[in-house]
C-alpha cells in the first residue's frame, strides 16, 4: 500500500484539518468531535442540512458544505459511519431554530448512528427530519437485504434539498424535496480495480487483470458479479440497463445524467462513458437536460465509475440550477 498519508489512524483528522485550512473561506472545522460546518452557520430562519458518513468518499460530504448545500458534514473514520457524539453537536450547530434535515445514506451503520443522534438532538430541542438515500439498483431483492445502498444520488439530493433550504423552504418541505429526488434517481457502479482502506493495508477485493466488478458500492465491498473486461460502451450499457428498468422513465422525460468517478479513473474515461450514456438516453427518447461528470463521491483510489439518472421536474431543475458555493460544487456565485 502506497498512500500520501502519515499515521493511518490519523488520515481523517489530518485530511479534514488540511481541508479546513484550504477552505477557510467556506468552512470551519470542529476537531473533536470532528465535524465541518459552514462558516456562517446557523443562518437565521434557514433549515439546516446535515449529512455525514464514513470518510473515503471525498469530496462527499465536507466538500458540499456551503451556500446552497450542506450546513454541516460529519466525517466518520474511513468507510465507517460517524457516531452520535459527533452528529449531535453538528446538528445543534446547524440549527437556527428552523430544524435540521439529516441526509443519510442507507447503510445499517449510518442509519443506526443518525437515528440515535436524531433522537438525542430532538431531546435537546432540535426538530429533525431524515432523508434516507437509497438509489443503488445494484442491490436486488431489497426486502431480503439491508435495502438499497445510498450512492451517487446523495450528491443530487444534497444539492437540490440544499437549494430548497436556501430559498427558505420549511423543514417538511426540504425533507419532502429531498425524498422526491431520492425517489427519482437510480445509480449503478462498476469497478476496474479495488481500493485499499488505510487501516486494512490490502485491497478490498481481488480482480484479475481481465475482470471488472459490476454493481460495486462505494466502500470497496464486492458488487453484484464479476465479468470479463469489456469496452466502455458495453460497460455503460450494462450500468444503464438496470437503472432504466427500475426508473421506468417515459419517453420525453427530462433527466439529469451524472457520471461519477470512483477516485482513480481519469476524467477522459468518464467523458467516454458520458458520451455513450447520453446517446443511449437520447435514443431511449429521454431528454438529457443537465449533466454532471467528475469525482463527486468516491471510494478512495478505486478505478471505475457510476452512472446516475435523475428524472427531473421543473422545480428540481430550478433548484439544481440555483447558486451553490461549496468547495467541491460551485456555480452562480
Amino acid at each position, binding site marked *: 500500500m502506497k498512500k500520501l498519508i502519515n499515521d493511518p489512524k490519523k488520515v481523517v483528522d489530518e485530511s479534514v484539518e488540511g481541508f479546513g485550512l484550504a477552505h477557510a473561506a467556506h468552512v470551519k472545522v470542529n476537531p473533536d468531535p470532528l465535524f465541518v460546518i459552514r462558516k456562517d452557520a446557523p443562518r437565521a430562519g434557514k433549515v439546516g442540512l446535515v449529512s455525514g458518513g464514513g470518510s473515503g468518499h471525498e469530496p462527499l460530504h465536507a466538500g458540499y458544505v456551503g451556500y446552497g448545500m450542506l450546513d454541516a458534514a460529519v466525517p466518520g473514520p474511513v468507510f465507517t459511519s460517524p457516531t452520535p457524539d459527533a452528529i449531535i453537536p453538528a446538528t445543534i450547530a446547524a440549527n437556527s431554530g428552523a430544524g435540521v434535515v439529516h441526509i443519510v445514506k442507507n447503510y*445499517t451503520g449510518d442509519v443506526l448512528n443518525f437515528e440515535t443522534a436524531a433522537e438525542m438532538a430532538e431531546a435537546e430541542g432540535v426538530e429533525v427530519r431524515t432523508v434516507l438515500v437509497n438509489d443503488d439498483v445494484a442491490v436486488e431483492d431489497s426486502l431480503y*437485504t439491508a435495502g438499497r445502498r445510498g450512492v451517487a444520488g446523495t450528491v443530487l439530493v444534497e444539492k437540490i434539498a440544499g437549494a430548497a433550504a436556501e430559498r427558505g423552504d420549511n423543514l417538511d418541505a426540504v425533507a419532502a424535496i429531498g425524498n422526491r429526488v431520492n425517489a427519482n434517481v437510480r445509480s449503478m457502479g462498476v469497478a476496474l480495480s479495488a481500493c485499499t482502506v488505510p487501516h486494512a493495508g490490502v485491497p478490498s477485493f481481488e480482480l484479475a487483470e481481465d475482470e471488472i466488478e459490476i454493481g460495486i458500492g462505494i466502500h470497496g465491498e464486492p458488487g453484484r458479479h464479476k465479468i470479463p473486461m469489456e469496452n466502455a460502451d458495453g460497460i455503460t450499457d450494462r450500468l444503464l440497463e438496470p437503472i432504466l428498468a427500475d426508473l421506468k422513465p417515459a419517453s420525453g422525460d427530462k433527466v439529469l445524467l451524472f457520471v461519477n468517478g470512483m477516485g482513480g479513473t481519469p476524467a477522459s474515461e468518464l467523458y467516454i462513458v458520458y458520451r455513450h450514456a447520453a446517446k443511449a438516453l437520447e435514443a431511449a427518447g429521454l431528454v438529457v437536460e443537465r449533466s454532471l461528470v467528475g469525482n463527486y463521491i468516491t471510494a478512495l483510489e478505486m478505478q471505475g465509475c457510476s452512472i446516475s439518472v435523475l428524472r427531473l421536474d421543473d422545480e428540481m431543475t430550478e433548484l439544481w440550477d440555483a447558486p451553490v458555493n461549496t468547495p467541491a460544487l460551485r456555480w452562480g456565485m
Partner: protein
Amino acid sequence: MANNAALDAAWAIDWLRRSAAVVAENRVHLIELDRAIGDADHGENLDRGFSAILEKLDAELPATPGAAFKLAAMTLMSKVGGAAGPLYGTAYLRAATAVGDAASLDSATLATALAAARDGVVARGKAAVGDKTMIDAWTPAVDAAASAAADGAGPAVVLDAAATAAEAGAVSTDPLVAHKGRASYLGERAIGHRDPGAVSSAMILRAAAQAAEASS
C-alpha cells in the same frame, strides 16, 4: 471451589479488559473477515472502541457491573461507529439497565442481562437468527445461558455455556446468505464466509467466561 460466586464489578472490569485484549489480538483477523463480505473495518472499529474503554478504565473504575456496562455502552456508542457501534452499544446499555445497581450478579441475573442485550440488538437491527449477523451468535448464547441458569449452574458455567453456543453460532453463519448488514448486498457470494460480528460476539462472550473463571 467458588464457581457459584456471584460476579462483581471486578469481574465486569476484567471482562472489558479481556475483551479489549482479544479484540486487539484479532484486529487483523476481524478486518479480514469483514474484507471478504463487508468493508474491512470491523476489527479496526472494535479495536478503537475497546481501546477507548481501556483508557476510561485507567481513569476511573466503575463501582458496579451495571456501571461498567454503562461505561462500555457509552464508549462503544461514541467510538466505534458503523453498524457494530450502535448495536454493541445498545447491547451493553440494555444489560446495564437489566442489572441495575446490583453489586454482583448471580446466574439468573446474568442470563437475563444477556437476553436484554440480545433484545437490544434485535430492537435496533431487526435481525433474526439465520440472517448472518451477530444475532446468530447472541441468540444461541442467550438460550444456552438461560438453560444453564435454569439447571442451577453457577455464573462461570452459565457464561461458558453462552460462549460455547456463541462460538458454534458464529460457525453456523458460514453457509448462510446474509439478509442484514453490508454482507446482504452480496447475495450468494456471502456463502462460505463467516460473519465478522458473530465472531467478535463469540470472542467477547468467551472473554466474559474467562473472566468469570479467573475470578472464581
